[in-house]
């Protein structure tokens, strides 16, 4: 199971192993990472699961598709490394991934 490190808005790190196939959002929820609200439950409709992929990992994780890209426009403080974590499916290649949770409300 790939190891994922989530860093919340206060800089606190949450290290957790998440099964491949789950979403980055589900990994955060299961680990109780604050700030990943995910109110639409992964339907790519709310943008409250917004996070920044650590610079070293943006190529491995890749970019958003059209729907996600549009939904990201609703998110606070969008950056080039922004992703909606519900739309990122975890793969073995993401072992060691670092994710910075955005300010979601």
């Amino acid at each position, binding site marked *: 199971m790939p190891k994922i490190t989530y860093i919340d808005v206060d800089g606190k790190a949450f290290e957790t192993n998440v099964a491949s196939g789950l979403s980055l959002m589900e990994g955060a929820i299961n680990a109780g990472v604050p700030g990943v609200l995910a*109110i639409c439950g992964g339907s790519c409709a709310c943008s409250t699961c917004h996070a920044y992929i650590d610079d070293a990992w943006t190529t491995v994780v890749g970019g958003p598709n059209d*729907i996600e890209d549009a939904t990201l426009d609703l998110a606070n403080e969008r950056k080039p490394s922004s992703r909606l974590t519900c739309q990122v499916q975890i793969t073995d290649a993401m072992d060691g991934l670092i994710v910075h949770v955005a300010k979601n409300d």
Partner: protein
Amino acid sequence: MSIVIVGAGQAGLQIAESLRRGAYEGRLVLIGDESFPPYQRPPLSKKYLADQMADERLYFRPLEQLEKQQIEFRPQTRVTALDREAREVVLASGERLPYEGLALTTGTRVRPLPVPGADHPAVCYLRGLDDARRLRERLPAAARVLVVGGGFIGLEVAATARAAGKQVTVVEALDRLMARAVAPVVSDHFASLHRARGVEFRFGVGLASITAQADGSFTASLADGSSIQADLLVAGIGVLPNQELAAAAGLECRSGIVVDEYARTSDPRIVAAGDCTWHINRRFAAAHRLESVQNAVDQGKIAAASLLGQSVPYQDLPWFWSDQYDVKLQMVGLSQDHDAALVRGETASGAFSVFYFKTGALVGVDSINRPAEHMLARKLMQTGAVVPPEAAADPAFDLKTCLPPA
């Protein structure tokens, strides 16, 4: 201090977590009569039904996350009465729980089919995870599926069943789909979409009765004398707000528990939020009831603020979505009482929006496979931007220019 929340759905959980985030440190009890931790309903008619998705993936939080927040979660526990004088809720077991603050987030239940034979085992509903499990178990063995009700849930189930290769017929008593929520142009578009995928429709006719057949299937007789043979029936003919507890305790109810713009009931110690409320949103002149994730979450936050002694008025923008096949319908605002509906884009292309106006003001936008336009519409409405109707109808006009300067 003790706060009790009755109903462990999306609104109930939202209130609990907002209270903790708002630094509430007293006792916090979340009571639900279902046997699962709070879970998401939207996937029940979509992904959960289509894939063999595990139940746990629907849960908002693993149980230990509730414990960590010191939320006393009581599943399989039904509240049978509210004793406002003693300030206690009464459980089915007879146990009484005291409260200083109380939240009612009891949601809705499905409207049962009002026809003879509706107790046939092939009749399914879809509100809870129990219902979804039952439907998912029965679906593989059914070749012919009859959906009663052409609303969101009926159509999502129809799409899923059709994608699974079932023969699907939808019976809708009105003359078009999702009639309460969308303009005829959107209804027609979805009817064509479903027809193109092989779904059959019977419009303007109601179900009259269900007669069991010896092989476990049934005959559904319609009001016009025709009949349909099928193996499984899914009824999606609307819901009823769970307001009996509130009503029996003397709280004001209409089509839902009446709350003001602060989510307060007629008893200042009691708030209510989510599907069960008949509520005021500052954006709209009239009170109404809404069944949506947006309302459960945003009104939940307002209710939590009120329990904490703050007064934050409810004025969030309503939004909603529905997935049918690979088509995404996204809605913002409330368009029910519009006087003009203007199409932006080509309906034939399968990607367009409908902008709804009332006396010249934008009141809602439905977008079909146009996520960027939906998000822009949310921003336009959120900022109160002035959108001239002729601009909305002109695809060459860049609507971003209507946004107020950042």
